[in-house]
């Protein structure tokens, strides 16, 4: 994963990506006990006014030129399947914006904060998302006051209250 992150950091340096943050399961694992996951989700902000999925095209072109192979929804970078997701709503945009800088094996990277991860999982709302929310709550991995602020800002309070019984320890 170290080499994968180095490649992604080079994409920022060369301007293919404006900003990125690790999201999804790998980000959750940063705060929780480890669990199996297939891929590395990278949420990206790109320097373009386009709003459709073609905004990822330059990013794929860059990687393919470097010899990395796309397969399905992933692109394999240094052996690791990576899924790039453009920020697709104000919540994911804020999650990337407010992500924290960490070190992974001495490589600097950015990772979403737990409150944003939980809010995104609630918004996505698949059974596995609810399971992970319950892991966050159980393991005290989230600041409840900050979480409620994020939920309120993005209109997710009702969804939280409606589904709370599914993940409250």
């Amino acid at each position, binding site marked *: *994963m170290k080499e994968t992150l180095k490649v992604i950091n080079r994409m920022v340096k060369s301007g293919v990506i404006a900003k990125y943050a690790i999201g999804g399961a*790998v980000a959750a*694992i*940063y*705060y*929780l*006990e*480890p*669990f*199996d*996951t297939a891929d590395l989700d990278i949420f990206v902000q790109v320097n373009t006014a386009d709003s459709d999925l073609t905004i990822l095209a330059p990013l794929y072109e860059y990687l393919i030129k470097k010899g990395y192979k796309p397969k399905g929804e992933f692109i394999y970078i240094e052996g690791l399947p990576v899924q790039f997701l453009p920020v697709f709503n104000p919540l994911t945009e804020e999650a990337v914006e407010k992500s924290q800088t*960490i070190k*992974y*094996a001495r490589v600097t990277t950015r990772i979403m904060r737990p409150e944003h991860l939980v809010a995104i999982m609630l918004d996505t709302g698949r059974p596995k998302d609810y399971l992970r929310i319950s892991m966050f709550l159980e*393991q005290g*991995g989230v600041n409840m006051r900050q979480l409620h602020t994020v939920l309120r800002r993005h209109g997710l309070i009702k969804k939280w209250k409606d589904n709370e019984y599914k993940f409250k320890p």
Partner: protein
Amino acid sequence: MKKYPDISEIIKKKEQHRRSLAALPFEKKIEMIFKLRERRKFIKTGQTVGRPQKHKTKSS
């Protein structure tokens, strides 16, 4: 009425173990996932992953 053993201590210990796993360094957790994947692949196919194959050398 049938009596069942109290497993609350086991549950408590499991919980403690999960918390200690969560507190591990990020690199260590990612390493554990890769190992888990190797183990899963081995169980499924009998093949080990990511280990160099032994080459037969000719004796002179």
